[in-house]
């Protein structure tokens, strides 16, 4: 029996079409998985269902009656509640107040019922994570703790429709189990749940149905039987029968260009020790959040080093700030392109030239002709689809934006290129072009150190893969031993 249905949903942001006729139907007592590649429209659709965004077109009906809810409060009055991917909390209020924000429990004379609120808060959070201190300020919590608070807040609203957007990204195994227990309880009470995730094993475990989005449209929805058909899923998500195999270039491996000894960003870590040669592509693997990104940031001078040494071509260096390392030819392509990679409001040309402008000693005047020439060269080399170098990067697709992020370092990464999950949220074609460009750089003689959350990417690109756990290198694989199985095993090797 359907509780919430949405049909023909269209949403545009400026020139970009985020949803183009998406549809979803949620039934009482069932858990529906909402799947799709990054940028497919999952978050936009959930935001519409939760009343945070109004769609340009489309109909929604609740319990069989048509509705439209232009605000989160209206959606909540219907019992539709969302727990966001990135917790939406007020940092200077304590956890228990955040849990009841906007739905405060009132007592005598309309005053806030502090005792009742705190009791209910403690009780609900305990179901997800025992011994949670509800008086701590939300701003002091770790991202995993914030995620738990975000979920607890949704649960407290006694939802009839619960939307969970990537709830398990930062959670530990035990917490995920408890969360699933709560979801099953809700289902038993007749609520519907939407579970957005990239983690197929979890989708397999908790979901009854799946809906797949691609490019803003629903391309498939069915009930899962005993086994989730991965191939069918992947081909629907990518729209291709098979992902083309990546052709490897033959490269000359040269002398050692980068070495670290016991590199650590916090004092308690043992530190990472690795070497990188010119022309080599070395991958960093492991579970998310084990320190891979921190190692790259530290090497680039963007994060303080607590212990350990770094040597570039035999000479010791102290990466104190990014400009130091850039001058040594060591450059970082950061993981979050919107917040750390691009000036969204500026043109492609301006973005591409910026780091060079910072490092350039002379002339102080910008050489416009040279900048234009270089921009066109990079656009051609990386295959950036654009109307011209003066186009604003905001208008580009995710994949092309990522190419700009990489492109600006091409003239400067003469010795080492560090990449932090460069193909995240990029469509398959652009991914191939990006990796071809990275390989080209390696073939030109730079050493490449690459972190990717997708093991397949690492296996297809790298000469060697290092597995990182808790900031240390716990395994090194190359050639025949470089298999997904080995990598996974090493990732979990020391885990509980």
């Amino acid at each position, binding site marked *: 029996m359907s509780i919430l249905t949405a049909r023909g949903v269209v949403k545009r942001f400026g020139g970009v079409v985020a949803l183009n006729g998406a549809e979803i139907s949620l039934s009482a007592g069932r858990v529906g998985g909402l799947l799709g590649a990054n940028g497919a429209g999952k978050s936009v659709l959930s935001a519409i269902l939760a009343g945070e965004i109004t769609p340009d077109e489309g109909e929604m009906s609740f319990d069989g009656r048509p509705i439209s809810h232009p605000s989160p409060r209206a959606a909540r009055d219907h019992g539709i509640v969302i727990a966001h991917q990135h917790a939406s909390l007020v940092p200077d209020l304590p956890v228990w107040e955040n849990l009841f924000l906007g739905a405060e429990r009132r007592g005598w004379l309309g005053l806030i019922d502090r005792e009742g609120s705190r009791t209910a808060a403690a009780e609900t959070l305990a179901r997800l994570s025992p011994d949670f201190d509800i008086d701590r300020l939300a701003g002091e919590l770790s991202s995993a703790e914030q995620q738990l608070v975000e979920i607890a807040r949704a649960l407290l609203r006694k939802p009839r429709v619960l939307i969970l957007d990537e709830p398990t990204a930062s959670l530990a195994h035990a917490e995920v189990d408890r969360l699933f227990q709560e979801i099953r309880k809700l289902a038993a009470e007749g609520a519907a749940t939407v579970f957005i995730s990239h983690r197929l094993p979890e989708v397999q475990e908790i979901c009854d149905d799946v809906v797949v989005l691609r490019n803003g449209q629903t391309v498939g929805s069915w009930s899962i039987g005993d086994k989730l058909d991965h191939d069918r899923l992947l081909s629907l998500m990518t729209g291709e029968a098979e992902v083309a195999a990546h052709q490897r270039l033959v490269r000359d491996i040269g002398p050692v260009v980068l070495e670290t000894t016991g590199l650590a960003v916090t004092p308690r870590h043992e530190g990472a020790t690795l070497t990188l040669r010119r022309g080599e592509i070395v991958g960093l693997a492991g579970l998310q959040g084990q320190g891979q990104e921190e190692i790259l940031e530290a090497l680039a001078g*963007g994060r303080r080093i607590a212990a350990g040494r770094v040597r570039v071509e035999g000479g010791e260096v102290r990466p104190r*700030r990014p*400009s130091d390392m850039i001058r040594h030819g060591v450059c970082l392509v950061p993981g979050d392109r919107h*917040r750390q990679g691009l*000036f*969204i*409001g*500026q043109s492609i040309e301006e973005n591409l030239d910026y*780091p060079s402008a910072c490092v350039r000693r002379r002339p102080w005047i910008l050489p416009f002709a040279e900048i234009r020439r270089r921009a066109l060269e990079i656009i051609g080399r990386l295959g950036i689809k654009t109307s011209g170098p003066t186009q604003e990067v905001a208008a580009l697709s995710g994949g092309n934006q990522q190419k700009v992020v990489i492109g600006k370092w091409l003239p400067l990464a003469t010795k080492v290129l560090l990449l932090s999950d460069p193909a995240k949220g990029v469509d398959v074609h652009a991914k191939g072009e990006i990796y071809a460009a990275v390989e080209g750089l390696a073939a030109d003689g730079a050493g490449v150190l690459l972190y990717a959350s997708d093991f397949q990417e690492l296996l297809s690109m790298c000469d060697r893969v290092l597995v990182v756990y808790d900031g240390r290198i716990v395994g090194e694989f190359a050639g025949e031993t470089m298999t997904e199985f080995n990598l996974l095993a090493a990732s979990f090797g020391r885990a509980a």
Partner: protein
Amino acid sequence: MTAFLRTGGLLLALSIVLMVLGNFVTPGFLSFTQVSTQLKISAFLGLFALCQTFVLIAGGEGVDLSVGANGSLGGIVGAALIQGQDSAVLPVAILMGLAGAAVGTVSGLGVALFGVPPLVMTLAIASIVNGGLIIFESIAQPAIATSPFLAQLAGRTTLGVPNIFLLWIAIGLAAVWFLSATAWGRKIFGTGANAKVALLSGTHVRMVKISVYAISGLIAALTGFCLIGYVGAAFLGLGDAYVLSSIVVAVIGGMSLAGGRGSYVGVAAAAILITVLTSLLTTMQISEAGRQIIFGCILVVFLLLNRHLDRAH
């Protein structure tokens, strides 16, 4: 670029419309002396707004509430040092510029190194500078007269155009060139657009932020120094009137309070527009009460229009 020319062009067109209107309301509004005066006043307002422009572009909710105090510093100490002599003008000007830059650097240090919100930091610095000037005036009883050269600069015209207006245009063009065609200018925009990206790309974000406050202080002090040529003598509170109006001019001229965007061209046009508007209201024989209310209402209308234009973008 064209968008900003459009804003600037629009504002200039409005100014001309107002001037013509003014002539209907008060004949003589379009007279040579009147227009001349307008141009001189807008030059000073425009220069103070240039200070705000630098600070606003660098982002981080940058504003400089100490432009008035720096202006007064340049005027009062400048007058005290030149003692009415032309020969001293050039060295004293350089000295005042350095003094203004020093004050600005202190503000910049507070903002960049200690993370003090610019609103608060520049407010505190303004208090200290103004306070210091009060003490200076009463203890040192300094000379307050202007020099003939400064009076020429601020008061006279060359080929019919006021000298100070020409100076303003020169400085304005230099500023526009600096911001758009030099690496440092690019870094200022980058810092304002996204300080994290700028940092990771190798920008010394702290240096950039300190530099814009230093530049603001320098320009403000020099402008105050020239201002005594226009008003004839130095006095306390010389620059006070310009503090908030310089910010208003910058915002109406298209500067974003968030930083990273905007062009001085629009700001300059806004300076002219606001000056014409204020003069028009003054000559219209309305009581001060009416003038204030009308000014406030028109400002609100401008802000509404600005927002509307922004949305359409």
